[in-house]
């Protein structure tokens, strides 16, 4: 094969790989879904999710997570549970390493890897499974809450590297999981020791959760409820959760630029100049004003919800712990690409500074420029998961949920009727991404 033909084939190969690389990020693709959801256009959001799944099966799992949130907001907890269960199983499968896929991601970008969920998402998918289940039959809620606790420990244990270091050791834990377990054990009326243990865990994992102290005291000295009474748990998904956006890793880009220039000046071949910056995802909090939800039952103010899990803090805390690994992978990818271009030139006996060498460098720059950060994430998660426990007489009641913004309660609060059963729990769930509720209030006992 002549040198010209080899150059042609190498350039063509690079162009093919460039074509296979990602262009737009997930974050851009799902903006419409989020906008519709926050506008309370749940039907529109759901339609876009389904269209997205049909268009790109690679994003199907993360889109199903969005669909589950839409179902939950729309008072369809059984459907939400089904979707979440499927994603949980897929994530469990995908979190195993796949060398071929990993190698491919070094030639393209991280979006080519099947999405196995971030650590916090893998835990929260189980926590939301428990919540979804509580809202329709509750038969598996305890199993899901145990799975949530177990998954957190598995993720942390698996974070240990060969040197014995574990960046995940200080991961913030999801206190919602032991809380749900405590709630369910307490409702058994005999396993108060388990309830106490679970509430103590909540107090340790989420010290800001003021109700934990009362929960522990009740499990030790009190009882589930007075005779003729039951308990209402109001869960509120408040605010807008974290999302990922593409960020430029400036120090790594600068270092690679200098290294590339040195290699080009001293080596037998030039490498593509590091014009395209190294891109990595960044977890970003979203602003919102909602603080808590005021709960009013039968015309009486009964209190305000408190945060049991701060999803944004959880995501940022966990991302910070593993950020160095993500940056290292992005830098390694860039080095691999430059190495391939260098090797291609060597193999086709190009002479440095010739038009053919320049053409391959240009193709290399284009190849690097098509990299995008992997911004896939569960975008409809709330900023916080909040809860309020109130004891009420058995029977029918009416509840109003009023968001509290800068200390003031918003008027025109949504309401619904529900039933309290003697000695049992009733669960309500509402989604407040802003001062307006999305969908409807879901209740385990209408």
């Amino acid at each position: 094969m002549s040198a010209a033909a080899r150059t042609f084939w190498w350039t063509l190969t690079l162009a093919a790989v460039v074509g296979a690389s990602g262009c737009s990020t997930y974050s851009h693709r799902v903006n419409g879904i989020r906008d519709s959801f926050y506008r309370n256009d749940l039907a529109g959001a759901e339609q876009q999710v389904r269209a997205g799944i049909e268009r790109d099966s690679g994003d199907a799992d993360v889109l199903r997570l969005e669909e589950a949130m839409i179902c939950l907001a729309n008072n369809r907890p059984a459907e939400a549970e089904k979707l979440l269960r499927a994603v949980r199983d897929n994530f469990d499968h995908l979190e195993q390493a796949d060398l071929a896929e990993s190698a491919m991601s070094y030639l393209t970008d991280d979006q080519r890897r099947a999405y196995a969920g971030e650590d916090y998402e893998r835990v929260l998918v189980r926590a939301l499974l428990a919540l979804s289940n509580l809202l329709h039959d509750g038969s598996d809620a305890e199993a899901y809450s145990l799975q949530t606790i177990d998954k957190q420990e598995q993720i942390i244990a698996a974070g240990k590297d060969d040197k014995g270091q574990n960046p995940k050791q200080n991961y913030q834990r999801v206190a919602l999981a032991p809380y749900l377990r405590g709630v369910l054990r307490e409702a058994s009326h005999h396993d108060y020791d388990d309830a106490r243990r679970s509430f103590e865990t909540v107090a340790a994992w989420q010290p800001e959760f003021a109700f934990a102290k009362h929960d522990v005291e009740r499990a030790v000295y009190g009882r589930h409820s007075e005779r003729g009474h039951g308990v209402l748990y109001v869960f509120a998904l408040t605010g807008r959760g974290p999302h990922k956006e593409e960020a430029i890793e400036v120090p790594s880009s600068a270092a690679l630029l200098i290294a590339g220039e040195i290699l080009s000046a001293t080596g037998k071949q030039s490498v593509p100049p590091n014009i395209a910056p190294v891109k990595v995802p960044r977890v970003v909090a979203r602003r919102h004003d909602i603080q808590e939800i005021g709960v009013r039952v039968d015309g009486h103010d009964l209190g305000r919800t408190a945060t049991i899990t701060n999803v944004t803090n959880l995501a940022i805390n966990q991302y910070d712990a593993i950020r160095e690994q993500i940056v290292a992978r992005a830098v390694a990818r860039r080095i691999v690409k430059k190495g391939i271009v260098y090797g291609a030139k060597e193999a086709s006996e190009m002479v440095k500074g010739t038009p053919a060498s320049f053409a391959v460098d240009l193709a290399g720059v284009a190849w690097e420029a098509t990299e995008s950060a992997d911004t896939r994430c569960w975008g409809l998660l709330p900023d916080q998961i909040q809860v309020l426990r109130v004891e009420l007489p058995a029977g029918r009641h009416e509840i109003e949920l009023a968001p509290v913004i800068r200390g003031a309660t918003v008027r025109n609060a949504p309401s619904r009727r529900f039933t309290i059963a003697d000695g049992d729990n009733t669960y309500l769930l509402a989604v407040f991404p802003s001062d307006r509720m999305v969908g409807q209030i879901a209740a385990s006992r209408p």
Partner: protein
Amino acid sequence: MRDRVSRAAAGSIVVLMVAMAILGCRGNQYARIIQPGDKQMMGSHQAGQETFAPLVDEAVAKLLARHPHQQIPVQYAGTGAEPLPPPKSSICFVGIENCTAEEIGDFKAQLYELIDSKIAECDSFTSVNRRWVDAGLKELRVKPEELFIPGRMQTFIDVMQKQGQPFQYLLFAKLTSGTTRENKDYQRDYLLTLELVDIRTGAQDKQSATLSKGYHHSWTSRARSTLGSK
């Protein structure tokens, strides 16, 4: 020469990619039925079936052995010659309290069922169905340990009688642990205590079973420990 090198390089890449595709793929999860007598799994970080099953076997056997099937004079029903079996005493098993350093998770319900089944299998006792026990505790809003408060036990007995579930004994189970550390390794002693209370006399019988388990940070540490114990 150069072509040979190129072909060798291309061949190596192909072999490498095929190897990655075969060896590096995600595996499926598999399962198997563990038959009686097969090697059982052992909890590496906390107690599992290897701990709880023998504890339950021993504690329940000890307790039931002290309350053998009572020999009562043979009775005859009507004119028939068939002897009537002596009535079994009814036990109300109110629950297990976990006071160990470990969260036992889904094992608690299973421990309850294991103990309850063993009681049901013996000749001396029969047990009250758990659903009735739960309903009684729920109706009174009383915790199992509060049944010892004067008056509470009688109220509970009355409620159970009203449900058509009278009983003669109350049974409590308690799981405790003690931990001894030796550098990075530790030994945990598990104790299952069963307390049987005769509600007519207030007399109490208490039986327990113990099992010690060593947790080692490495296989070498476990091997050293195993050799040292021989």
